[in-house]
């Protein structure tokens, strides 16, 4: 795809939203190979800092509102139509870095590295649960349920609709895998977790710092139903789909693992540095990392395009409208028009 950086008109259409380590939200247009920066009101390029590094991007009620979680615990709402930040609030105790974010029904659920999971209704006091060290959190869509994991803190699922004070127990608590042949306990270090869609959110995938991919089925057992090793470097993020999972690690290897066949489909080539986030939407994969490039691939592992965004990226979210535009380009429009133009033959009259 040719890059046309002069075409500024089309840059308002974004293919994906990217969060950077300086707190700048970027709208990347993959077709025109350019991007646009968005600052919170009062901030400029000369005042932004690494303290307001973006930790997580999530959708609000619709794809018109985007919640931007910062490492220092602030959450800012961004309106994707008018393209301005509308409001911000604090969702942590400011003692530790924000690690994960989830939104449902006017409630923001956040978790910090020190292990404080809290649900913040827009009107009311926060509900807090404390647990061990956390490094990742994934929310179940349309629910107040989140799955968490961290270093020496195995997978746990918490439901805030059944909240009973700070000592609330998780609704699911996984068990560590069995000891190895030498009867040694296996260390636990979950770096990323994701729900598998179309499984009633009963199946989860985790990636670990010891380069393992684990599949948990909460209906079956507390130990993982699938446990494999991929590559030789820590896994930084996973994105689970119906029958495969996209796995990325700290040296920039992005792979698609088919957990039905239990084999690798192949690599998404190109990334040279640690991948921080992977996003999937209807056959397209967005990859961002500290090599400062945003890359979009198709599901059959072909690079659509890449954009240099000048800053280290921490989080990516594909825009559904942008993906629809990309999908529209793929289908042969001329042929479709030709078919549409053809008049159906007149009904033959009975004689």
């Amino acid at each position, binding site marked *: 795809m040719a890059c046309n950086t002069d075409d500024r008109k089309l840059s308002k259409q974004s293919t994906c939203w990217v969060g950077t380590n*300086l707190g*700048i939200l970027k709208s990347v247009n993959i077709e025109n190979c350019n991007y646009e*920066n968005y600052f919170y009101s009062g901030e400029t*390029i*000369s005042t*932004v*800092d*690494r303290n307001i590094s973006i930790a997580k991007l999530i959708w609000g009620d619709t794809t018109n509102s985007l919640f931007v979680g910062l490492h220092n615990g602030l959450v800012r709402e961004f309106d994707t139509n008018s393209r301005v930040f509308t409001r911000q609030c604090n969702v942590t105790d400011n003692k530790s870095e924000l690690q994960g974010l989830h939104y449902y029904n006017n409630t923001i659920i956040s978790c910090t590295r020190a292990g404080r999971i809290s649900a913040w209704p827009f009107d009311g006091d926060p509900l807090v649960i404390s647990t061990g060290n956390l490094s990742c959190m994934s929310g179940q869509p349309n629910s107040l349920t989140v799955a968490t994991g961290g270093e020496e803190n195995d997978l746990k699922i918490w439901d805030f609709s059944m909240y009973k004070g700070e000592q609330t127990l998780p609704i699911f608590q996984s068990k560590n895998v069995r000891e190895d042949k030498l009867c040694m306990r296996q260390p636990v270090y979950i770096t990323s977790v994701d729900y598998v869609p179309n499984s009633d959110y009963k199946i989860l995938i985790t990636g670990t*710092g010891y380069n393992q991919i684990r599949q948990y089925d909460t209906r079956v057992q507390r130990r993982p139903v699938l446990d494999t090793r991929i590559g030789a*470097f*820590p896994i*930084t993020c996973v994105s689970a789909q119906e029958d495969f999972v996209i796995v990325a690690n*700290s*040296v*920039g290897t992005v792979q698609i693992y088919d957990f039905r066949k239990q084999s690798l489909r192949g690599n998404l*080539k*190109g990334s*040279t*540095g*640690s991948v921080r986030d992977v996003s999937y939407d209807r056959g397209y994969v967005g990859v961002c990392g*500290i*090599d*400062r490039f945003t890359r979009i691939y198709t599901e059959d592992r072909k690079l659509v395009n890449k954009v*240099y965004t*000048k*800053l*280290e990226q921490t989080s990516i979210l594909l825009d559904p409208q942008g993906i629809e535009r990309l999908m529209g380009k793929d289908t042969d429009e001329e042929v479709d028009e030709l078919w549409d133009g053809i008049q159906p033959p007149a009904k033959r009259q009975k004689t």
Partner: protein
Amino acid sequence: MWKNLDPTSTRSIPEQVQVTENERRLRELYSLIKNKRKKSELYNKHDTSKRKLLRSGKIKLRALRREFGEEKYPRQEPQTLENTRVPDETIVDKDDLEVKRDFETDELSTYFKGDFPPKVLITTRYKCSKNSYRFARELQNCIPNSVAMPRRVLRLKKIIKELIELKFTCLIVLNEDRNIPNGILFTHLPSGPTAYFKLSSLRRGQSIKHHGRSTPHYPELILNNFTTRIGHTIGRIFAAIFPQKPDFTGRQAVTFHTQRDYIFFRRHRYIFRNKKKVSLQELGPRFTLRLQWIQKGTFDTKYGEYLWLYHRKTMGTNKRKFIL
């Protein structure tokens, strides 16, 4: 063979290269030589150079240049791998605000803002040979405020923890293979970044002809051709090892010159001969570096995040594609 240079047919030959009468006679004389090899040798001696020049139109151009001047027919620059390099997206304008802000807030920014001198520890791998230790001593001579220490059986991560408490700003570790130094690691403290280089063509100062003796003045630093984003990171890693304010009275300069992804280290003293002439005296050591990987944070090869990693397969084999 004689088709073009046959005196009777001078279609494509410009006037200046027409075969002279003298040459034609010579050729007739050569044809009498019985020794085939000698004969062809003499023929070639007279003709090939001219034919070659004809083919490239060099003579024609030279004549035109003589007539109309060099401005109208300029001398062309030779094509090299550097000036035909594959365009890199990460080479941006110098005054780009975003990249500038990125530098202003990165891990090394505290060093570039403040004017405290760096404090460096140079050490080697376990059980190094005397070659490595001698090289470490030479580096110590070259880097102000540095200490060269023999490595005891201590883990790097443990050393780094202690160095941060002692307020060191950089750790340099030398690696060796078969008693020859072959790698060098730079870790900036307390929060990185870390870079590992392959080291080759090492020459100690003593073995350089007409080498000079160094003085403890702070040297000037020259960083050449670090253009891409990764190049800038590497340039900053080198710059943060040396004090920011050089002693100009010492007239010493340390150079990191990059060409085709190789980094050449040289150290000189400049001497003013007269008002126009300056000469250089090399002080040593002299070595070449090749980037292997860069990491965010301090040394942690297993669980750290890599900014870039040498991987021939994914980098491709294009010789005109450079990363620095």
